[in-house]
């Protein structure tokens, strides 16, 4: 079962199957495969079936919105009215939001059916989905390997055909890296393109929601439903959204694509580099002009990111204090005990590490050396990209330096884990859109190619990816155990 959203929409409108039928199929697949993959924290069967029925009734009346009757899953940090939103944390194991995130609301209003909430690294902090209170997620291509993170559950669910599409969030690569590791297509839009309202914050100036799907064409549909100004999010952009599907067929003829030399330097697995080279060759064949460029401050992106992201998260996670919602320790003796034990018990190790580092970076006497310095570097990284976009239309490189690593391989070495994000992180610092497209395999594990666009150039990225996907089928392959 490897249908795309586009195929499902066609099948629904042709009456080949109903939303209820296909929803039941997906729920059955989740029931069969989720125990091995652990993609879902919650499966919302009742809601899914009710929404599917409503969709079928709407379709019968001839009413069809963008995603009417299409089943999909939400990363478990998008708040869902009446359904637990855990952020994969013990802290929120008991948290049921009284409202829908804007993304959830828009997708619901577009007619989609919610299958459930997907697993992730706790509070989106991680690159392997090993930091989850609900256990790690397995990569469908090799269940001894990680699916990437933090949106590992969403990526693995789409790869294994447990959902045709899913939402994710990307703070430093959390959509693109798991998309690459699982061989699916994912896009992180420009910062501000998709509302953050109801998306539980990790690092507010970096977080951005986006879709996973099997193709660029599907991602265009999903993004269309998700994107747009939201008065409830002051950082959301009020610029008009594009029609992301309209220009997909325009091809890449004449487009100038830049290859940053820093993205093909030491640290990149040479076998992976070769796979990317082949994909580049394909785009060149289609008429793209390939240029070498430089993003000289790439090396600064990881330290910069970890100061900014941790500083923001140390503050964002202060509200989880055991007072109003979430985990509260048993029998606190006083206020301090309540805070210490509730937070000590509620948060996992990586979350605590980041809160501590962030708190340190913002402390009196260190603020200038860390936070302020990081903001300066952030501007330099942004300037690098702006200079590059003077001479190219988009930038291309690998999404990750290596393919999905084995579960447990990096858990004792957080810095090596952080280095996984070397190619993805600088986009978040700059606020630029990026996407990951499957371009082949190394050791039986998928390789992702990253496309980076200028601000609000999502349509261009989708068009280039779609053009590539017209002559390749990497994105449509399904892991044997789950076909």
């Amino acid at each position, binding site marked *: 079962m490897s249908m795309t959203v586009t195929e499902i929409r066609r099948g629904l409108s042709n009456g080949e199957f109903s939303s209820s039928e296909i929803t039941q199929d997906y729920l059955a697949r989740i029931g069969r495969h989720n125990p091995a993959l652990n993609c879902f924290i919650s499966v919302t069967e009742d809601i899914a079936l009710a929404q599917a029925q409503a969709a079928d009734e709407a379709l019968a009346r001839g009413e069809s919105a963008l995603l009417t009757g299409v089943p999909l899953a939400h990363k478990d*940090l*998008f*708040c869902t009215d009446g359904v637990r*939103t855990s*952020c994969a944390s013990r802290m*929120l194991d008991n*948290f049921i*939001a*009284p*409202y829908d*995130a804007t993304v959830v609301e828009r997708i619901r209003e577009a007619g989609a059916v919610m299958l459930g909430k997907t697993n992730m690294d706790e509070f989106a902090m991680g690159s392997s989905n090993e930091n989850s209170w609900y256990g790690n997620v397995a990569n469908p291509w090799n269940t001894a390997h990680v699916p990437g993170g933090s949106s590992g559950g969403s990526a693995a669910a789409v790869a294994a055909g447990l959902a045709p599409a899913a939402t994710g969030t990307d703070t430093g690569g959390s959509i693109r890296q798991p998309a690459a590791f699982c061989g699916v297509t994912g896009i992180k839009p420009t910062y501000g393109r998709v509302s*953050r*309202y*109801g*998306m*539980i*914050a990790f*690092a*507010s*100036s970096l977080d951005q929601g986006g879709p996973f799907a099997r193709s660029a064409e599907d991602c265009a549909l999903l993004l269309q439903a998700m994107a747009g100004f939201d*008065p*409830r*999010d*002051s*950082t959301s952009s009020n610029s008009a959204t594009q029609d992301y599907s309209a220009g997909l067929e325009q091809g890449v003829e004449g487009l100038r694509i830049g290859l940053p030399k820093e993205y093909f330097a030491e640290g990149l697995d040479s076998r992976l580099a070769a796979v990317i080279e082949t994909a580049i060759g394909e785009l060149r064949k289609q008429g793209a002009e390939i240029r070498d460029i430089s993003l000289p401050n790439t090396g600064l992106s990881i330290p910069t990111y970890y100061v900014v992201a941790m*500083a*923001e998260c*140390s*503050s964002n*996670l*202060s*509200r*989880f*204090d055991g*007072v*109003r*919602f*979430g985990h509260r320790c048993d029998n606190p003796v006083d*206020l301090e005990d309540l*805070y210490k034990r509730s937070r000590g018990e509620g948060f996992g190790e990586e979350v605590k590490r980041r809160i501590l580092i962030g*708190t340190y970076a*913002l*402390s*009196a006497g260190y*603020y200038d050396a860390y*936070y302020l310095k990081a903001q300066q570097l952030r501007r330099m990284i942004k300037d690098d990209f702006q200079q590059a976009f003077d001479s190219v239309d988009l930038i291309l490189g690998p999404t990750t330096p290596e393919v999905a690593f084995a579960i447990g391989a990096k858990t004792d070495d957080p810095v090596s884990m952080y280095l996984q994000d070397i190619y993805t992180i600088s986009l978040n610092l700059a606020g630029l859109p990026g996407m990951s497209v499957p371009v082949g395999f190394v050791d039986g594990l998928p390789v992702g190619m990253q496309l980076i666009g200028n601000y609000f150039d999502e349509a261009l990225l989708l068009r280039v990816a779609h053009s590539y996907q017209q002559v390749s089928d990497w994105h449509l392959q399904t892991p044997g155990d789950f076909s």
Partner: protein
Amino acid sequence: MSEWESVIGLEIHAQLATRSKIFSGASTAYGAAPNTQACAVDLGLPGVLPVLNQEAVRMAIRFGVAIDAQIDHQSVFARKNYFYPDLPKGYQISQFEHPIVGTGSITISPDEGETKTVGITRAHLEEDAGKSIHDQFPEQSGIDLNRAGTPLLEIVSEPDMRSAKEAVAYARKIHSLVRYLEICDGNMQEGSFRCDANVSIRRKGDDRLGTRAELKNINSFRFLERAINHEIERQIELIEDGGRVVQETRLYDSERDETRSMRSKEEANDYRYFPDPDLLPVNISAADIEEIRAALPELPEQKKQRYIATLALSDYNAELLTASRDTAIYFEAALAAADNDQAAVLANWILGDLAGALNKAGLEIDDSPIPAADLAQLVARITDNTISGKIAKQVFEAMWQGEGRADDIIEARGLRQITDSGAIEALIDAVIAANPEQVEQFRAGKEKVLGFFVGQVMQQSRGKANPGQVNALLREKLK
């Protein structure tokens, strides 16, 4: 003369009179049942985001324009991080490096005829926290988040005040200004206007600042003065006994009339301020500022000058009438029901008898039992000679007691002044006839006896005879 000089700076939190909160749509109305005016944003639920209430920004700019402050074109919100149960997000959204209102100043009059300029360092916008309630549940504390997210303008002065009296004059001036600007209701009991005082002392002539204590929890001007004076005494005694002032926060206890240490600097929080990434910087254009400046109401100083120039009021009375917006409103409402040439008499009544009666009853002027138009009627009866000034006091008393308007009381009690010279002459004749001895004395040149006759005639008329007429007629008849 003490060898010590006190140095005082104030931090005033003025609650802005917006209808909804600074970052959410919840109501700011006071007195609702606990937690009924706290929405998801106020509760700091996971995933919610703040959206700035533009009205709060406009109000802050109004204040800035009124004190001629520097207003930068970009203002930034920052997070002040600390844990407390009534602070839902674990941080307060405030401003740190780029406050909306920069350096400005205001002129105060601590004593009649004396003026002093007090520097204002900055004024910034921030959200209020909720309230912790410690006395309603045994072994537990309650949290009421109705107040969480209420917009505050924190106005920080320079340490320019040198006495409690100056500090109070400054606080009153700011209080009056925010009321004039209609950006704060000024209600100190409900906490809409709160003062924290930074107090230190130093030897006279020393230009370094001493270590300061911050006094909190002061909810009236009277307490502000007392708390500061207590603190000055405490610090002088401490140093004179060989001790040292430590930087700390002290809570004023109005029941015991003392300050108590709350926390010292060593235990103080490191607030880890940083720009709030959920909110974009606020851009304020020169045109925005000009628009707000053009729409400013008449401010106390302008009003005072107008009273002096067009109503011929004394500088002193004009100052007193404009010191509080409510007094000025009362005065202008009374004047609207009177003639401009009655302004001085009206002012005297408002600042004299009415102020005295209000003060005695513990009432504010906007709760006056005598409406402004009624006071104007009373004054009109004095100027048109219906009653004398003395009778007017009786009428005022009756009006205060709620017996009706001036005309009704004058009528009901028969207080109309006797101006019929025939009637007055009859009274005079009777008095002269009854006091031949005093008549002789007057005629022998003892002028003072005239007062006796006036008093007798007025008494016979029960105060209703026109004193001027009585005087003139008496002189004629005694000739």
